């Protein structure tokens, strides 16, 4: 049994806080962007236009069948070719996670849209709403509400997955813990600290999602 020295946790806090702020920013931007793009993808997948539906399907299947680390490396390599200038690891991470998570949010939104009873569509049509109006005012609000717990659970997974920006060296919380651990020669204590922080946040959020789930369920 080796000697542990947890006094390193004190001076590490400012760095951990900065890293955690980036992790949270990455999570929130990827969640917002991912849900918007994911919903558009879901509409494309359900569209009667075969080409649109197939293109969206191919994108979603592609993202879902390769490892996230590889997607992160891909975007880090390819984005500079598209924009013409080198981009930082942080910007690359935000673009990557938004694009990657969109595929997962798409599948959630798709099953949410499909879970809305057909009678709702007929009723909207009978009231004289057009196709787009029906989607925006009747179907999507119900789909979002039905899928809210699943969307949030996916966001908890996303929050954990952001740690993989380690592969391109972006300064998230884990990277901050890594750097402090190296500087103070206390890597073990810093890994334990980051595990505790991740666990507290994720466990807390998952309890909150469970509580929410019971409140938002639409009783029919």
């Amino acid at each position, binding site marked *: *049994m080796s000697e*542990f020295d947890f006094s390193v946790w004190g001076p590490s806090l400012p760095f951990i806080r900065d890293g955690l702020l980036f992790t949270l920013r990455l999570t929130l931007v990827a969640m917002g962007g991912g849900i918007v793009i994911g919903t558009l993808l879901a509409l494309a997948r359900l569209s009667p236009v075969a080409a649109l539906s197939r293109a969206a399907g191919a994108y979603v299947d592609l993202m879902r069948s390769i490892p*996230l*680390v590889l997607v992160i490396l*891909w975007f880090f390599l390819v984005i500079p*070719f598209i924009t013409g200038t080198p981009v930082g690891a942080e910007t690359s991470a935000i673009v990557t996670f938004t694009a990657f998570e969109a595929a997962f949010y798409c599948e959630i939104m798709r099953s949410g849209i499909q879970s809305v009873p057909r009678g709702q569509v007929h009723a909207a049509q009978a009231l004289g709403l057009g196709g787009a109006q029906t989607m925006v005012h009747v179907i999507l609000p119900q789909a979002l509400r039905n899928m809210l717990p699943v969307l949030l659970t996916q966001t908890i997974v996303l929050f954990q*997955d952001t740690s993989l920006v380690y592969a391109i060296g972006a300064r998230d919380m884990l990277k901050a813990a890594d750097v402090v651990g190296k500087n103070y020669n206390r890597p073990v204590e810093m*890994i334990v600290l980051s595990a505790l922080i991740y666990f507290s946040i*994720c466990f807390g959020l998952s309890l909150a999602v469970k509580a929410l789930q019971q409140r938002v369920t639409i009783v029919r």
Partner: protein
Amino acid sequence: MNYHWNWGIFLEQVKSGDETYLAWLATGLGWTLAVSLAAWLLALGLGVAIGTLRTAPRKGLAALGAAWVELFRNVPLLVQMFLWFFVVPELLPRDWSLWVKQDMPAKEFATAALCLGLFTSARIAEQVRAGIGSLPRGQRDAALALGLTLPQAWRQVILPQALRIVIPPLTSEFMNVFKNSSVAFAIGVMELTFQARQMQEDSEQGIETYLAVTLLYFICAFAANRGMAWIEARTRVPGLIARTS
């Protein structure tokens, strides 16, 4: 920016030795398969055991199963890799700790397989629990009424049905294992992602490298999917509604 394509790169020799890049990728594929399959076997055994425990009538056993699932589900896999690789050896008795740090053969592989196996076992446990929950209560009651003990009922009546029902979600878990094994690069397992990063830096032909590695991951996921579909078709529970292809 211009990119110079060079599809012959795979047959060229690496700058730092006399191997070809193709040999690097082949080594990578080997380690990816080894880590994934070892982790899968461990996860399947533990996951079925813990998922079953969660349906036990004893509160203590069920709580143990719940704690197991929450523990592995709420810490990122990458952090779990670091915990097993850097932290756990420090917690062992002195002699063991020294052995792990200095003499343990294939230390990176063993750590990655153990870590990924435990991580996946928590997810399989949830599927198995759901599978058992989906069976009519009468199955268990009838087994107990026939005089079977609860462990006998699990083994003879409940699990043979539940495990076949959960094959579709287990298929996606099996595909996830191959994807998640990529995280092992961080503790130095020389699997595909590790080799991809190494080859990209060494050859500066990033796009060809990543395309090749993406294709290899695709093949792994596809093979896993087909293999499970084959098992699913042969183990279908008679009398249940299930698709026929």
